[in-house]
């Protein structure tokens, strides 16, 4: 194991896992509690359009993805304002449009076509020092925002209509959170890819929610679960020589099933004691 850890890329992957788990703990808990998983999926996929355009013009793909995902997040807000278009329909449109634009521009780009699979599934083992620094900044910003505004975030997320009667900038908090969700998605894409990211934002928070109903504990627990599953997935993928991203997702779903069964057994035992 120590020998395993002596590789530079394993150390990088280790630090990246910690930072991504912190981000996933906060952002995942928020989007699961607010039922924004589909919206986040839409933003994540729409950002692919930005990656394609950036490739075509030869600029940094992450920059393109950032602009696209923030625009999508804020665009959804204005598209669904006035109830002309329902939110899930708007998400479906921007989701597919973003992916289409991405494919379109990658196709138009002469010469070498980038490995699109790497944006879908990512590769935490090839993460660079620059990517880790980016993740560090993101993790710090997200943590700071949640620690400073924990109560307003909780109260506003729980009942937005009520919060608006309280003369606090409820809109400002939810807009900022949407932008943070979008940026968290983009900064993590390089390391873990679109698909793994969605599972890390969704599954750990739902596992944690099986054990606790407290917002703060779900954040903490889902962060820990994210980290353990990433490490577990990487080690297992090494042993079996299979892709790490897919292994992590399958491991996460396995953890979810185990947690479900444990909860179910506890309920049966609890009922037995009353017989």
């Amino acid at each position, binding site marked *: 194991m120590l020998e395993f850890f002596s590789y530079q890329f394993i150390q990088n992957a280790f630090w990246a896992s910690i930072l991504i788990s912190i981000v996933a703990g906060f952002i995942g808990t928020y989007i699961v509690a607010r039922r924004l998983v589909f919206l986040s999926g839409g933003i994540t996929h729409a950002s692919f359009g930005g990656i394609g355009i950036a490739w075509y013009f030869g600029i940094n793909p992450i920059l393109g993805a950032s602009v696209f995902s923030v625009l999508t997040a804020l665009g959804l807000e204005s598209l669904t304002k006035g*109830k002309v278009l329902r939110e899930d329909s708007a998400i479906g449109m921007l989701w597919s449009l973003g992916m289409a634009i991405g494919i379109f521009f990658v196709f138009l780009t002469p010469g070498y076509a980038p490995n699109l699979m790497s944006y879908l599934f990512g590769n935490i083992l090839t993460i660079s020092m620059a990517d880790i620094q980016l993740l560090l900044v993101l993790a710090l910003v997200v943590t700071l925002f949640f620690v*400073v*505004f924990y109560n307003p975030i909780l*109260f506003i997320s729980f*009942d937005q*209509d009520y*919060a608006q*009667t309280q003369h*606090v900038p409820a809109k400002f908090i939810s807009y900022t959170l949407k932008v943070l969700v979008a940026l968290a998605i983009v900064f993590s894409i390089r390391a873990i890819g679109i698909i793994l990211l969605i599972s890390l934002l969704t599954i750990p928070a739902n596992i944690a929610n099986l054990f606790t109903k407290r917002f703060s504990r779900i954040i903490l627990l889902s962060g820990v679960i994210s980290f353990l599953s990433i490490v577990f997935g990487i080690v297992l993928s090494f042993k079996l020589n299979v892709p790490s991203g897919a292994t992590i997702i399958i491991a996460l779903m396995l953890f979810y099933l185990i947690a479900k069964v444990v909860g179910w057994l506890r309920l049966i035992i609890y009922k037995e004691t009353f017989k």
Partner: protein
Amino acid sequence: MEENSKLILQVSKAAVGYGKEVVLRDVSLEVFENDFIGIIGPNGGGKTTLLKLLIGQLKPFSGEVKYIANGGGSLFGYLPQAGQIDKNFPITVMEVVLSGLLANQGLFGRYGIKHRKNALEYLKMAGIEHLKNKSIGELSGGQLQRTLLCRALISDPKLLILDEPNTYVDSKFEGELYELLKELNKRMAIIMVSHDIGTITSYVKTIACVNGSLFYHKSNQISTQQLAAYNCPIQIIAHGPVPHTVLLDHNHNEEGHKH
């Protein structure tokens, strides 16, 4: 009415609606301290729209809604319909009640022992202090409604606005709620929207009817003639084992409305 009591809320000639559609026109209303106004009206008549106007969720197209602030706490406490609450949201009873202090505490405010003690007092008053650490998903409809009432009250508002508080709750809680409101009415004005006029007429002091506009009559006596004059096409009914229409000369006392 008490001529010398203080004006809390003044709505003057407000028109309000959604997009380009005007739902309510020429709404004027004055609320004084210790008022207890029951708002009734047919479905689709604009009860919810009026509430949204009063709590500032909708801005009037014309006219104005003015809260005459008289120091201290929030301008108003608001009790939404319990059905609008996401019961799966991971939040505890204590946290929900504390969220009623958001206006006072602002974005940077901390919630310390003082605030928790304050919240606990309201939970005691509502008889649910033993539930303070439960998540809202574990509550019954009546318990959730009590929790939301505590949230509305913790900022010690001058005006309490309730949106159909008698839906989703058992009749036992309903009776207790009305008694509690009677008590609260001694220190705050109350506006309550309800479709169950049979019951509310025995508790409220005055009745307003919403149907395209607001018809405010400073009395709690309603008869079918008045409703006709208000253009308020609703039947006076009360719940019972057999649905029945309350007769014109029916005395609105509690005996007539056993649940």
